[in-house]
């Protein structure tokens, strides 16, 4: 595996560790940490800082029976939540979002496909499939967009991104990501605002495809 060159920014890792990152971004960051030892170490370090805050924040008096009630429950049977392992190019957290099934792709034209994992007030997160050398229509967006490469590569004005690389694009960026020439590019992309395409036709299609 080639080295990862584009990492999760520290403020996003801190927010993710603290649980304040919106759900679509949290999924992309969880997937990136699953692939990147550096960011896993940084995530663990933020947990250590959280642990220090927990230690310092000041104790509250407990109700008398809480301890005995808790001890009595130690052997109570619990329903285990299913855990999702990596499958192919999809890390565990993405498999969980897919509920363990392969993605259901929908065509966006020109061989580009998407599979929406989640779309609501907090933003949206989806998988994108881009054939080799294919460009995705030029678009800008109102907020932040995180894109993580799972297979192949793409490049745009922000640089070149291979497997495990995370691109962070803000509203300033108007980019035309183009897939590399090797394998088709599969990535996961999250935004906290709907994408706006700058060419006319994709914009007309936007409500239709929810992109």
């Amino acid at each position, binding site marked *: 595996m080639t080295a990862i060159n584009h990492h999760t920014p520290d403020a996003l890792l801190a927010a993710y560790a603290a649980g304040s990152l919106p759900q679509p971004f949290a999924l992309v960051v969880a997937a990136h940490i699953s692939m990147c030892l550096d960011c896993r170490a940084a995530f*663990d370090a933020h947990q250590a800082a959280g642990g220090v805050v927990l230690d310092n924040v000041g104790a509250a008096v407990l109700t008398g029976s809480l301890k005995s009630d808790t001890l009595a429950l130690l052997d109570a049977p619990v329903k285990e939540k299913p855990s999702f392992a990596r499958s192919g190019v999809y890390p565990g957290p993405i498999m969980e979002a897919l509920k363990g099934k392969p993605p259901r792709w929908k065509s966006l034209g020109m061989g580009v496909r998407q599979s929406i994992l989640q779309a609501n007030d907090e933003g949206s997160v989806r998988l994108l499939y881009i054939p080799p050398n294919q460009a995705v229509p030029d678009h800008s967006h109102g907020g932040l967009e995180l894109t993580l490469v799972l297979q192949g590569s793409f490049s745009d004005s922000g640089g070149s991104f291979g497997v495990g690389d995370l691109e962070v694009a803000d509203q300033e960026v108007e980019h035309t990501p183009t897939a590399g020439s090797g394998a088709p590019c599969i990535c996961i992309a999250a935004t906290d605002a709907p994408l706006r395409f700058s060419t006319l036709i994709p914009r007309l299609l936007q409500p239709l495809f929810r992109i």
Partner: protein
Amino acid sequence: MLIASTHTNTIERPPAMGPQKDRLQVTQPSTEVSPQTTWMLAVRDGRDRAAFAALFDHFAPRLKGFIMRSGTGSAQAEEIVQDVMLTVWRKAGQFDPTRAQVSAWIYQIARHKQIDTFRKDHRPMPEELSREPDLEPDASQILAMEQEASRLKKALSMLKPKQREMIEQAYLGELSHQEISTQTGLPLGTIKSRIRLGLEKLRHDLKELR
């Protein structure tokens, strides 16, 4: 108590224990693993109820204080505390003292439960790196982690009150990612490198076993 030794890196079974006072007056690097870590390992490896009770005495009041800081009422906070402590018991097998302090590990569980409760949402988590249960814990690595954590604690206490408050808000989940500055004044570089070493060793060990 556990002693780090150059001759052996095995962990002895801890003696029967009750709640103990935190050792705060450490003037030179400690050669003993903290009681919290000792209790947690006894829970993980020996399913030791007395050790769990000691962990409860230490962490449950702090957890309640932590959860109530975000405006949760006492009764609901206690429900979450109970849920967190039961998870500590059930998921003890995932605790790895060479990568995390007990407080860090419990912090993560607590935030997760709070999100589950209040957002009715499930925070996506990274894949677990499986810990090989038969590997003997490396006491020197555990001690090194603990020293980094106490350095972090000291660094936090040296900050100006306003800065400290900001960091507390951030890790209580009260600040958005836009509000979190990377210039918090909290030195995370050395603990990050220490954890990175632990992760590399784990990856190496897992490869050897395959």
